[in-house]
């Protein structure tokens, strides 16, 4: 950490060393818990793969090497130029929507409406791409479509925020219900107003024909949406930690009563936070439409809304943490297809692993183990309040 130069022969005094070790521990703590949770989940996953191979997949005996083969195939699927592009494509919506969910967590709001906001954002972007003339240059259509996606998503987040602020209707329930409302709104839009006039079955126009596709910046299909996600991370970080609004959001999340007594307009904060969360999910929907799927038909759906919750929890609601957990989950999604083809292990393993990671994360296995070890040694727990605070910010 640059405290002692390379030519210092003397060991630093004991107190300084303790301080350095403490600082490293404090910095490592928030990272160590997710990492331990991921490793434990991979271990459980390996046991599960082996058991299933013996019991269900028709192998005569338990294939102990199969988990290793599967994980290697998954890694191999990621570690290639196309794999990296695919990882970034999967990560883009996860990071964007994850930032929104994380912002909600910081404000003490649980936004389960990512699915509906994502879909409504998709509809918004598609509507603009359809409405703007074919002759327009992509320098006009692409930003307009992205803006529309963000605006539609924000509107979808605004509704539960307003409902909570005005009537106290819990955002968890209203966002769940709105998810389905927006699913059907999307079906209706695709088969009605956004449908191509002369198609055999309901399907929208292709955004590439409308000059509304995101430019490809990496490999064959790595689109520019990742830049958007990378820009969003510092913006949300700045918003949270360097602005009055961010301070108010964090205060309202930590203690809503105190925030209100302190003169903050918590109702306004709720509406604003939910709208921003919706905006991020809507933007995620727009990037997937304009960068990956290009065209939608009835039945179009997404798992990004729920995956974003995993991403936000794993990233401890911290924008930088969300960046890394989004990349991790994106890589798992990108590699899962290769894994299914090469090792014969179904790609759904990734969803199962997600849930197992979350169980270990919320049960906080590492902290319990450290606490118990510390208790045995008769010293104070090695863990400071930081991790506990982060966990509470989530709850």
């Amino acid at each position, binding site marked *: 950490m640059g405290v002692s130069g390379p030519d210092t022969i003397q060991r630093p005094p004991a107190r300084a060393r303790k301080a350095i070790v403490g600082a490293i521990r404090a910095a490592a703590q928030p990272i160590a818990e997710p990492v331990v949770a991921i490793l434990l989940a991979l271990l459980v996953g390996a046991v599960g793969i082996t058991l*299933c191979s013996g019991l*269900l*997949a*028709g192998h005569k005996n338990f294939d102990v090497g199969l988990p290793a083969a599967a994980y290697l195939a998954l890694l191999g699927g990621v570690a290639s130029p196309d794999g990296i592009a695919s990882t970034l494509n999967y990560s883009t919506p996860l990071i964007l929507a994850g930032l929104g969910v994380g912002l909600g967590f910081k404000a003490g709001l*649980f936004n*389960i409406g990512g699915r509906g906001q994502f879909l409504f954002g998709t509809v918004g972007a598609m509507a603009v791409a359809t409405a703007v003339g074919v002759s327009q240059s992509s320098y006009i259509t692409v930003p307009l479509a992205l803006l529309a996606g963000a605006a539609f998503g924000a509107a979808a987040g605004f509704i539960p925020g307003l*409902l909570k602020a*005005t*009537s106290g*209707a*819990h955002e*968890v*329930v*209203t966002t*769940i*219900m*709105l*998810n*389905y*409302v927006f*699913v*059907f*709104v999307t*079906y*209706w839009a695709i088969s*009605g107003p956004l449908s191509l006039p002369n198609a055999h079955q309901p399907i929208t126009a292709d955004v590439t024909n409308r000059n509304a596709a995101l430019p490809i910046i990496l490999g064959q299909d790595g689109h520019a949406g990742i830049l958007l996600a990378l820009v969003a991370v510092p913006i949300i970080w700045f918003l949270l930690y360097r602005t009055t609004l961010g301070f108010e959001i964090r205060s309202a999340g930590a203690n809503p009563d105190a925030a209100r007594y302190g003169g903050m307009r918590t109702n306004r904060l709720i509406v604003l936070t939910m709208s921003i969360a919706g905006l991020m999910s809507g933007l995620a929907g727009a990037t997937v439409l304009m960068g990956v799927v290009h065209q939608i038909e009835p039945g179009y759906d997404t798992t990004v809304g*729920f995956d974003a*919750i*995993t991403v936000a*929890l794993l990233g401890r609601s911290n924008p930088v943490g969300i960046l890394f957990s989004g990349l991790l989950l994106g890589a798992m999604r990108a590699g899962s297809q290769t894994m299914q083809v090469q090792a014969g292990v*179904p*790609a*759904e*393993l*990734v*969803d*199962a*692993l*997600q*849930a*197992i990671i*979350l*169980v270990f994360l*919320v*049960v906080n296995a590492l902290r319990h183990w450290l606490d118990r070890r510390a208790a045995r040694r008769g010293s104070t727990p090695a863990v400071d309040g930081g991790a506990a605070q982060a966990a509470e910010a*989530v*709850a």
Partner: protein
Amino acid sequence: MSSIPQALDALPILGILFQLLGYVLANLSVMSQTTVAVAVPITLAALCGVMCERSGVVNIGIEGIMLTAAFVGWMVGVGASAALGVGTPLPFFGVTLPLLLGLAAAILVGMAVALLHAWLAISVKVDQIISGTIINIGAAGITGYLYTLIASQAPTSAGSFAQYKVPDQVADLPLVGWLINAVLSQGPIGLSTIVIVIFLQVMLFRSRWGLRTRAAGEHPRAAETVGIDVIWLRYRNVVMSGALAALGGAWLSMEQTNGFNANMSAGRGFIGLAAMIVGRWTPLGAFGAALLFASATGLGTSLAIKPPTGDLGQLMAHVPGEFWEALPYIITIVVLAGVIGRSIAPAADGRPYERESAT
């Protein structure tokens, strides 16, 4: 403007409403059997929610419990019929041994998943929404994973439970015969759902268990003061409620159809939550709401198959079919927001109970 012309303006709307009523009545006998059937899994999910939330535990993992139970019921049926043979079905409900084993396994696994939620929510004191979300993600992932593995071997399912055949003498009764026929033409899970609704309604408001459950959901501290073990009570309720959601799951894969599909619960756990809210956290209310929701779906289907004539037909031609499917969720939001008939959750719903320490 005086108020009389305004009242006249409303007349066409009234006319349309009467036409709608007439249309519904004319098609009721066709719609009602399906309506009750569609309402069965929604009701069971809602009852699961009622049992949990009345004791103070929010459960949004119902969807996951249903999906897991649907899968396990089907899978055990497949395994059992491969090992034991299908056998001749019994004269009532087409019951076979593999089907019964599948049903039992579905209920057990539903209770096991509910136990996981109970442990996370009550003992570990994880945010109960997070716990439910974990269960939903995990259920979709694990059942999808296993289904992909098994489906490649082209398994034969154990079949499904048969419907109860209402005797002709009853079905031909004037005025009420068709209704009895529609309500009772269900499989064993559908019929037991109706019994469970009434049983739970009585238990929740007329028994010691019900009083204790409601006390734990409204004011756990007070409940504990009079000697109720809130933690144990909540555990018991959540685990038992898992059996209800599991029945709903088993209905999907063993009564409505005879197979399993990835994500076949298709949001029924969530619409069950909606029915619970609209039904104000009571079993009978939840059943009524589930019937209402199911009839919105039924009406939508009926309108698509057999469009009404006249003004109503012209109006309905402009209403997209998706509207009827979204209607239950819109109703729930309206009820939650308190525009019509405000619905209020138990006071301690979703708050982990912290026992006062003895020291």
